[in-house]
């Protein structure tokens, strides 16, 4: 089970937080701050990092969870965001933060994966989104980093 997912920028700004464990606000703020402080200076030399775009994804999982597959959960989420925004970048997630949450909910709830098929998940998102086509952002793609952390 995933306990929480955090998405933050290289500057340490939180872009998305999703908690599947019930914790008081204070505790959440404290954990978030500590994690960002641990992760930002580490760079991606250590083993649990995979290069991605310009955001850090952080999943808190349990010791016995399958680590390689949790990595793929993050990958799948980025794929879904890509598919929805048409090549996602950090700004999309800032300006459409609520969509980033909705997409996550279609794919992953209560700390467990709900739908592993990309098609089904995208279809669910599109069904619920009765509005127009995405407008592509001009911002360049940068590098993201995905991190796992136990």
């Amino acid at each position, binding site marked *: 089970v995933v306990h929480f997912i955090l998405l933050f920028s290289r500057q340490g700004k939180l872009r998305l937080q999703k908690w599947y464990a019930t914790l008081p606000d204070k505790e959440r703020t404290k954990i978030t701050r500590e994690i960002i402080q641990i992760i930002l200076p580490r760079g991606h030399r250590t083993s649990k990092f995979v290069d991605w775009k310009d955001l850090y994804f952080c999943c808190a999982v349990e010791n016995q969870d399958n680590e390689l597959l949790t990595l793929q959960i993050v990958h799948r989420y980025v794929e879904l965001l890509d598919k929805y925004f048409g090549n996602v970048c950090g700004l999309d997630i800032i300006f459409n933060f609520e969509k980033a949450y909705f997409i996550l909910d279609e794919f992953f709830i209560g700390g467990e994966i709900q739908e592993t098929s*990309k098609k089904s998940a995208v279809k*669910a998102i599109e069904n619920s989104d*009765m509005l127009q086509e995405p407008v592509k952002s001009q911002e360049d793609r940068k590098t993201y980093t995905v991190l796992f952390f136990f």
Partner: protein
Amino acid sequence: MPAVSKGDGMRGLAVFISDIRNCKSKEAEIKRINKELANIRSKFKGDKALDGYSKKKYVCKLLFIFLLGHDIDFGHMEAVNLLSSNRYTEKQIGYLFISVLVNSNSELIRLINNAIKNDLASRNPTFMGLALHCIANVGSREMAEAFAGEIPKILVAGDTMDSVKQSAALCLLRLYRTSPDLVPMGDWTSRVVHLLNDQHLGVVTAATSLITTLAQKNPEEFKTSVSLAVSRLSRIVTSASTDLQDYTYYFVPAPWLSVKLLRLLQCYPPPDPAVRGRLTECLETILNKAQEPPKSKKVQHSNAKNAVLFEAISLIIHHDSEPNLLVRACNQLGQFLQHRETNLRYLALESMCTLASSEFSHEAVKTHIETVINALKTERDVSVRQRAVDLLYAMCDRSNAQQIVAEMLSYLETADYSIREEIVLKVAILAEKYAVDYTWYVDTILNLIRIAGDYVSEEVWYRVIQIVINRDDVQGYAAKTVFEALQAPACHENLVKVGGYILGEFGNLIAGDPRSSPLIQFNLLHSKFHLCSVPTRALLLSTYIKFVNLFPEVKATIQDVLRSDSQLKNADVELQQRAVEYLRLSTVASTDILATVLEEMPPFPERESSILAKLKKKKGPSTVTDLEETKRERSVDVNGGPEPAPASTSAASTPSPSADLLGLGAAPPAPTGPPPASSGGLLVDVFSDSASAAAPLAPGSEDNFARFVCKNNGVLFENQLLQIGLKSEFRQNLGRMFIFYGNKTSTQFLNFTPTLICADDLQANILTKPVDPTVDGGAQVQQVVNIECVSDFTEAPVLNIQFRYGGTFQNVSVKLPITLNKFFQPTEMASQDFFQRWKQLSNPQQEVQNIFKAKHPMDTEITKAKIIGFGSALLEEVDPNPANFVGAGIIHTKTTQIGCLLRLEPNLQAQMYRLTLRTSKDTVSQRLCELLSEQF
């Protein structure tokens, strides 16, 4: 401004976000946010009713502000209003706000639950989905109370859409995790199991997650899932990569589902032969696929494929029954040990650790020793090196111990500070466990102190002393080696301690050599004295007095040192006292008395290594067990408790040499009897084998037992030979009992063995220290019993005592009065509070009543004393009838605290009592009522 993208164009929101991004400073940002908050507040408070769109926009702005890290304390009501909107996007934002900013206001919760209820009943799948997501996200107890009954129905209803089923399964899982007591098993469980056969793989995936968690707690209810899971898995692993269409992830068929099914199977032992054959085929197929060339160069492909492979290996290890599969798994992991992906090397080291503890694969793991040693030297990431250390520890046995210990020692020189202490413990354990030649052991420990003295804990250096004292073949060598090590100009204080202790005991063995004459030994130690801390100095003083006995020729020198002001007037009381006493002892005692008092230490009793206990405490028991230990623990674990060695044993198993070096203190001397036959640790001594041979309870035992319900001290048993007295104290959920065994005869008791026999379901941890097997005529020995109440319990343990008296075998059993009420803490309360709580506990199961005839004279004062002795508070002026007695208290167990109220109504004319117990737990009410009824 970048293009504001899709959606229903909340322009105001986009503008606001842009504004924030354009702020040049933190102050400007805060100013802009405050302005916006003021604006939103006035809109929400304004007279004009806001339309849905505006509400949605403002609520969304509040969310954004919250996500920037600012507190939001309003807007909840507007968000709740959005929930009942018929527009999907408005409802969606409402739910998002509620999920992110969970609020504990009860009125609000009622409104939210109401909205959710409506959406669940709407039969509109998108609305149902939103409501279920919200419950799964929040997962509060209130929501569990409201919906835990409803969701299983949605989940198994025939007409529920697949996507709703998926959400319902995970929603139920979340509620079960947060409030398992509110999710009752029922008819739906068997239907949920059949979801494993569902055509929709998304439904199967979600259902598997749910079933796995439920099966961990209720294996019996879900055991039919095993064969279904195996056949599902079999269909997946044998499918071609295109068969599963979109559920194939980078050419790997349904990796998430495969992993979940493999995880579900790990809740159960190996299945029946028929199913087992099919499962073995699946696992072989997964292992075979690992050898095939990759279908894609992408990392996603290899990650997904290996994720399934690692989970399959976990299952193989879990079953631990197919030697062929275990060896194949080991070979596969061996390949990964040299893989270029660090993640894989890490995971391979980790999995191999568990393989090393299987008797089938232990040898196969050992073949990789060189690779693992190499990893220790070359891995760049400390977490990987740590796993390499763990694996070396796990694969160590007599055949490779010297090599592994040498490698660990050399790694220790450069190891990261964070893991040094653990490596020290591991080296110390391995060196002891596999020592054939104890000189090697002594060298290893001294090396440890030299390389990483700061990380050598007390347990480690106590242990080397115990071993040297217990093995006379190594004492001379140890004395010589510490003497040489102490020559170093700067040596670690721990070395001074070990050196001081060993020379104090065995310095005479090397005193013949003029290079280590008594005076040289003394001067060497004393040259370190002033650099050491108080406890070390205290230890050295004891060494000096031992020298006075060993080497009369240095007596005068030592007396001078003891007599100096810096000792006799030392500000530290302990040092001062030792100096005074030792000086006096050396002056007044005759040689004979000195020789007796300062005699060589008796051997320490063999017990579980305290170092091992420490490592277990540090890492958790499962991570350090090796093959032998797993087996041993299985047999030891009589209480069914998860922790084989509670922390208190470690304190008990290592008498601190510095605390009572001379055995002069008031505490009883270390037991000198022969070590118990098995060295498996204290618990074995207490619980082993004698259960079958125990005598039936002694006559009168039950009566005596009852007398102790309301008191803690007194004589528990007495016959012509033996008297057993008790003294006990209890605090919260812990207790300590001193049992005194008195030999009433003038003849020795031999092979005196008291054993505690506990019922299997005893919810208390009970630890005893062994007692001396010989009890002299007229003597009394004492045994300490530590008790921890885990949960409420009924049966009391039985104390069985066996011994030989004048050639006849004696066998006595008595019930030991460890009863639930001992864990009572009294609670004072006023009349009003009492009756209010009384009413709250009005559930029929919570009350137990007993009407019984008085067995003793009905004396008010005695009754009061008994109620207080029972442990509850006696509440005066609470009951309107002054003849009645009421009491209140809390039973403390490790897991919970249970509030208890009691009322005793005497009827003098009929010589009867009515006793009523109300507590929050039915079994507690029952037990307390039984115990107390016997008292009057």
